C-alpha cells in the first residue's frame, strides 16, 4: 500500500479546482460553447475528392448566398467538411450545393455524409440533452443519498459538477464542437466519475467504523491510499481503451473519445481531491454514521 499524504494537498488542490471551475464558467458564459448542427440547426456535408483546393470549394459556395459557411479539412487528405448555417424549407438547397460542386470542381466528388437538422429539432435535442445531464446528476445524488449519508451525497455531486463544468470549459476554450456524442460522453463521465468516487467513499465509510480515533482527514488519506492502486489501474485500462478509439476510431469518434479522456482524468482527480475534502468540510466522523443508523432503527 502506498502512503502519500493527499490530505495535506487538499487545500492547494481545492484552490486549483476553484480556479479551473470559475475559469470554465467564465469561458462557457462569455465565449460560449461551439454547438454543432445537432444543437444549432444547419447542414453538414462531408465529401471526399482528390486534387481539389479548399479555397475553390469556398469560392463556389460563396456565390450561392447561403449565409455563413464553414469549410475545413476533415481527417484524411482529400476529406472536407462543409457546414452551412442556413436552414431553408425542406432542405432544397442540399441538392443545389451538390450539383454546383459536382459541376464546378474538375474532380470526382464522393458525398460521404449529409446531415441537416431543422431549428425546431435542434432546439428539442439541446433541451433533451440538458434534461438528460441534469436528470443523471439528480439520480446520482439520490442514489448516494440512499446508499450513504447526505454529506457523501453533496460531496459526490459537487465532484460531478466539477467534472462536467471543467470538461465543457475545456471544450469552450479549445472551441471544440459540442454535438450529440459529446452529451453521451458527458453522461458516461458522470457515471465513471461517480464510480470512482463511490469506491473511495465506500472505503472511507468502512474505515470510519473501524478507526474511531482517527480524524476525517486521516481517514480520507488512508482510504485514498488503500484504493489508490485500483484507482490507477482502472484509469489506465479505461484510458488504454479510450486512446485506442481516439487514435484509431476515426474522425467521427474523435470528439467523443477526447471528452471521455478528459473526463476520466478529471473524474479520477476529483474523486481524490474534491469529493474527499468535502467530507472533511462537513466534519464527517463515525458519529455521522451512527446517527443515521439510529434514525433507521428507532
Amino acid at each position, binding site marked *: 500500500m502506498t502512503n502519500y499524504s493527499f490530505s495535506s494537498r487538499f487545500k492547494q488542490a481545492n484552490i486549483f479546482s476553484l480556479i479551473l471551475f470559475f475559469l470554465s464558467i467564465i469561458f462557457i458564459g462569455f465565449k460560449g460553447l461551439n454547438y454543432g448542427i445537432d444543437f444549432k440547426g444547419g447542414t453538414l456535408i462531408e465529401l471526399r475528392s482528390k486534387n481539389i483546393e479548399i479555397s475553390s470549394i469556398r469560392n463556389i459556395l460563396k456565390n450561392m448566398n447561403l449565409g455563413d459557411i464553414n469549410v475545413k479539412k476533415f481527417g484524411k487528405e482529400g476529406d472536407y467538411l462543409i457546414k452551412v448555417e442556413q436552414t431553408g424549407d425542406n432542405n432544397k438547397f442540399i441538392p443545389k450545393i451538390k450539383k454546383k460542386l459536382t459541376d464546378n470542381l474538375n474532380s470526382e466528388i464522393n458525398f460521404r455524409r449529409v446531415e441537416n437538422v431543422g431549428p425546431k429539432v435542434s432546439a428539442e435535442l439541446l433541451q433533451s440533452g440538458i434534461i*438528460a445531464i441534469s436528470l*443523471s446528476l439528480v439520480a446520482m445524488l439520490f442514489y448516494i443519498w440512499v446508499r450513504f449519508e447526505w454529506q457523501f451525497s453533496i460531496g459526490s455531486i459537487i465532484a460531478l459538477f466539477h467534472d462536467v463544468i471543467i470538461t465543457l470549459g475545456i471544450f469552450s476554450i479549445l472551441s471544440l464542437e459540442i454535438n450529440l456524442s459529446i452529451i453521451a460522453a458527458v453522461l*458516461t463521465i458522470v457515471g465513471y466519475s461517480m464510480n470512482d468516487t463511490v469506491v473511495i467513499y*465506500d472505503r472511507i465509510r468502512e474505515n470510519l467504523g473501524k478507526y474511531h480515533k482517527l480524524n476525517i482527514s486521516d481517514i480520507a488519506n488512508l482510504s485514498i491510499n488503500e484504493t489508490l492502486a485500483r484507482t490507477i489501474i482502472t484509469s489506465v485500462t479505461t484510458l488504454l*481503451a*479510450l486512446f*485506442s478509439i481516439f487514435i484509431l476510431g476515426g474522425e467521427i469518434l474523435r470528439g467523443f473519445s477526447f471528452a471521455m479522456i478528459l473526463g476520466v482524468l478529471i473524474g479520477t482527480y476529483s474523486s481524490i481531491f474534491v469529493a474527499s475534502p468535502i467530507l472533511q468540510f462537513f466534519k464527517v466522523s463515525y458519529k455521522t454514521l451512527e446517527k443515521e443508523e439510529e434514525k433507521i432503527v428507532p
Partner: protein
Amino acid sequence: MLNFSKINVLSIYLIFFFISIFSFLNFQNSNQFFEKKINLGLDLQGGSYLLLEINSDSLVEEKLQSKVIPLKKLLKDNNINYSNFKINEKTLSLTINNKDKFELLFNSQKNNPINPYIDNYRAFELEYKNTNSNKIEIFFSKFGLLTINNAALKQSIEIVRRRIDDVGTKEPTILQRGEKRILVELPGLKDPERIKTLLGKTAKLNFRLVSDNNEFGTDSLISENGEKLKVSKRIIMSGENLIDAQPNINNQNNEPTVSFTLDRLGAQKFGRTTTDNVGKRLAIVLDGEIVSAPNINEPITGGSGMISGNFSFQEATDLALLLRSGALPTPLLVVEERTVGPDLGEDSIKSGLTSLVVGFILVILFMLYKYKVFGLIANTALIANLLMLAGILTILEATLTLPGIAGIILTVGMAVDANVLIFERIKEELKTEKSIIHAFDTGYTKAKITVLDANITTLIAAIILFAFGSGPIKGFAITLAIGIITTLFTAYFLARHLTSLVVLNNRNKEVKI
C-alpha cells in the same frame, strides 16, 4: 465465497454458454431455425434517415370551411336568424338571435351534423364562446384538433409507406414519432433526393374546367406552356376517384404520358362533364399548378384517360406513382435528415473494429503484466464478457452503431475494474490474513458492495442516456448498459469460480496476486 456447489457451477457455465452461443449466429449467412442477428445502424451500413413533420393547420381551416354549409342549413331549418357570418382562419363568428336554442342544437350528443361527439375523448369536436350578447365564435376543441391531427398523421404514414414501397428501397422503416412526426429509415440509400421530392408533394389532383363563369369563383393559374388561364373553383373530380395510374409512351408523338383509370363514381362524373362540355378546356391541376389543360374533343365515358404535359419519362413515372399512392392530407416538412454513404459506413466499421481489437489487446497485456495468473483469469472473464455482450445484443436484435462500438470498447476498459477491485482487496487481506482461502473469501465478500455500488452508478447514467438519446446514441447506451450487466456476471460468477479453482488447487502453496 469460494465454495461452489455443483449446481452453481453448472448453471454459471450453462448461462454463459447459452447466451454467448448466440453471438456466433452473426457469423453465418443464413439459418432457417434462428434468424437473429445484430443489425447495423445507418451510420455503419450507410443509408438515409428522414424525420418528417405534418402541419395540420391548413387541414383545420379546410375542415372548418366544410362546416359552413351544414351549419347554415341547421340554423335555417331551426328558424334561427343569423348575420355577420365570418370565417377567419381557425374561428367561425356569427351573430344569432336565439342563443339558447343554438346551444341545445350545438351540444346535442346524438346525430349532431356539425358538432359530433367524440366517444374516445368524451368531448365534442367543436367549442364555442360568447364574445358579446349575441355574437358567438366557433372553433375546434382541444380534442377536435387532436382528432384531426391524429387522422392526418395516420393517413400520412400510410401514404408515405405506399410511396416508399413503390420506389422499392430495401427494408425501409416507417414509424410514428410523437404527435406530429414520421421517422423514415432507408438503409442503403445513397441519395434521398428522389424520395424527398416524392414525399414533398401532397399530390392533390383536381380536374376543373377552364371558364370565366363566376358562379363558383375562379383561380388564375398558369398553364404548362405559360398561358394565363381562369380555372373554375368547382372541382369536377379529384384524385380520390383514381384507381390506378401508369406511365406510358404516347404512340403518336413518342411523348411520355400518364394514363389513369377511374372508379365507378369518378367515371360517371367524368363522363357527364366531358359530355356536357365538349369544346371547352379541362384543367388538370396538381397541388395548385396546372399540369396540362387539354381541349375536350369528345365525351370520355370509358372511365380512363391520359395526362400529357411535356414530361420526361422519369417525371411521368413519378407522377403516376404519386397519383397511385394517393394524396397526402397535409404537406410534409423534412425537419431532420441524415445520410451516410456506404463507403463512410465501411470506413467506420473498419476503424471501429481496429480500435476495438487494439484496445482489447492493450488491456489484456496490461492485466497480464499486472496480475499474472489472476490477470489470465480477468482476461478470460473479459473475453467471456464480450461474447455474452454480443450474445445479448443478438438475442435482442439490437442495432449496432458507431457510438455503440465505442460503448463496447469502453466496456472492455471498465469491465476489468470489477476484478481489479476484488484482486486489490484480496491483496490487502493477504497481508493480515494467514489462511489464503480465508483471505480470498473475505476479499470477495468485502468488495461485493463496492463493485455493485460502482456499477449501478454507471448503469443509471446509461439508462438515462437510453431514455433521452436519439439514434446512434441509443446504441451507445444499450451496449454500455448490457456491458455492465455482463461485467457483473462474469466478474462475480465466472472469474470467482476460476479464482477458486486456482486457490483451492494451491491451498498449501503460497498464492500471490
